[in-house]
């Protein structure tokens, strides 16, 4: 971009890049290393960057003693339900939004942007009161409901883009050949929409899997806690030897979204999905 930089320029660039790699990478290496360290190494006065006697003990301990196993199952259940429901609900609406242009598409996008502006505390109190009234506070069903609603505007916007990419001519050709509307949808639109449906489901799954605030407020029974909430509680437990299982649990909690990002990496780095996944 700046043409051919001088040799000192190049050197400076590499120094800067090394700085970034250290800043970005070392905390991650530390998490990995802590997760594989036996208790004896964790309490050592001067810990090493690489574990001398790596062990899987922390993973076992995290999932047996600290009940992170149950929390992971809870998270899996809630996230899967959210993903499936989001897709089922968003599919018909996104088709309507894409094929029959209306102002609603703009409204949905506007709502995505607007909802970023409002702190969750404004929403959580009324949502909490409403859910309590219908007996869904402190249940997974209530949590799923919230997650679906919060994933919906973005899911709609994303899916209708996928629908728009399916040439309308294909549908018209099928109906000329005598297919009914339902057949057109099932045989033509649905198969072509599959990648979009997968992407939407993944998006919804990950938002639910990572979500912390709503789960913290809405779920009071410890047995129902999702993984982020269970991990956050775990942080409060003192003791350096406890750091191992904590790191192991954190690592496993990251896996699903890491897989998702590896899957989306190409599109993310090309920028076409840059605004897609929020922090």
């Amino acid at each position, binding site marked *: 971009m700046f*043409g051919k930089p001088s040799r000192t320029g190049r050197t400076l660039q590499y120094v800067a*890049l090394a700085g970034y790699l250290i800043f970005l990478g070392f905390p991650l290496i530390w998490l990995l290393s802590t997760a594989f360290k036996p208790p004896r190494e964790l309490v050592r006065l001067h810990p090493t960057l690489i574990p001398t006697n790596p062990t899987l003990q922390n993973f076992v301990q995290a999932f047996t003693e600290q009940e992170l196993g149950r929390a992971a199952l809870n998270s899996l259940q809630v996230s899967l339900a959210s993903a499936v429901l989001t897709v089922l609900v968003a599919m018909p609406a996104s088709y309507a939004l894409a094929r029959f242009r209306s102002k609603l598409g703009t409204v949905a996008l506007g709502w995505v942007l607007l909802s970023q502006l409002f702190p969750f505390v404004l929403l959580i109190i009324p949502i909490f009161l409403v859910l309590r009234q219908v007996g869904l506070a402190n249940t997974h069903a209530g949590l799923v409901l919230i997650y679906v609603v919060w994933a919906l505007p973005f899911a709609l916007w994303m899916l209708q883009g996928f629908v*728009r990419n399916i040439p309308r001519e294909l549908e018209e050709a099928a109906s000329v050949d005598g297919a009914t509307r339902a057949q057109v949808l099932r045989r033509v639109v649905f198969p072509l929409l599959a990648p979009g449906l997968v992407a939407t489901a993944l998006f919804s799954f990950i938002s639910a899997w990572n979500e912390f*605030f709503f789960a913290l407020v809405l779920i009071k029974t410890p047995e129902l806690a999702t993984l982020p909430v269970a991990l956050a509680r775990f942080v409060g437990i003192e003791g350096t030897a406890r750091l191992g299982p904590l790191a192991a649990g954190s690592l496993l909690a990251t896996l699903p979204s890491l897989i998702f990002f590896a899957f989306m990496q190409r599109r993310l780095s090309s920028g076409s999905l840059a605004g897609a996944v929020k922090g």
Partner: protein
Amino acid sequence: MTTLAERSDVERPGRSRRPGRSRSDRTAIYLLLLPSLLPILLLSVFPLVRGIYLGFTDARAGRNVGVNFTGLENYRQLLGDELFWNSFKIGLLWAFGVTALQFVLALGLALLLNQQLRFRAVARVLAVVPWAMPPVVVGILWKLVYHPDAGLLNEFLYRIGADGLRANWLGDFSTALPAVIIVGVWAGMPQTTVVLLAGLQGVARELHEAAAVDGASPWHRFRHVTLPALAPVIVAITSLDFIWNFNSFGLVYVLTAGGPGGKTMLPMLFAYEEAFRYGNYGYAAALGNAMVVIIVALLAIYLRRRMREAN
């Protein structure tokens, strides 16, 4: 694509050229949209409106407590609430600090990633990983780094012989907020970098070549070609970052829970405590309203200044 766009324009409801289909179509559209719209209205739009309203009431936790409209009483109380002002100041320091550092560091990284450098692929992957981590995990990760006894940072300082600099980073009054801000920067850099990199790749190569032919130095080309071309992207991402940072919760909740001594009590944490520890729903909602007004005001000032500069 254009033909598709034109066609769907033709079928825009109300302007249809085939009025015979329009009514049944409209019913079908609403039937398709209903399963999405109803939940959004009930669990997103309604709670928001109600939340805004609660900010003007004395709503409290408890099943049989009446809710009275109290007008601006909550806000009068807020103005005199020292804890609120303190939290608000910390929130601004946090949001401005994180957004500014995020931007500068992300721009630097994006410029580097836009070059033909070795290890670029590694940096690209590393730059995205924090994005893939749940905020709670980012908090835990950095708690491990800052840990006073078993932490990476203190151990590093010891190894380079700077033992005197070792500190209880998250527990000390003077270091807690800066330490937390660094974590915020680390967590939010990926989005900013990816967006800026996409913007950089959109800057026309010809402009650079022309400027280079005219003898402009790299710095001049950056200042007068790259930056102006990037301006709209910069404004968009810094605005979004600022909103996200101001409203962030999970990260700092895990790191310090607002401590030590309220030194990292971001407004969101403060509101959470008011609502769910003390049960002051109305007051917490008022705080939320105040935050929205402040964010909108700050964004308006920022965007107006940028617009004026652009003209």
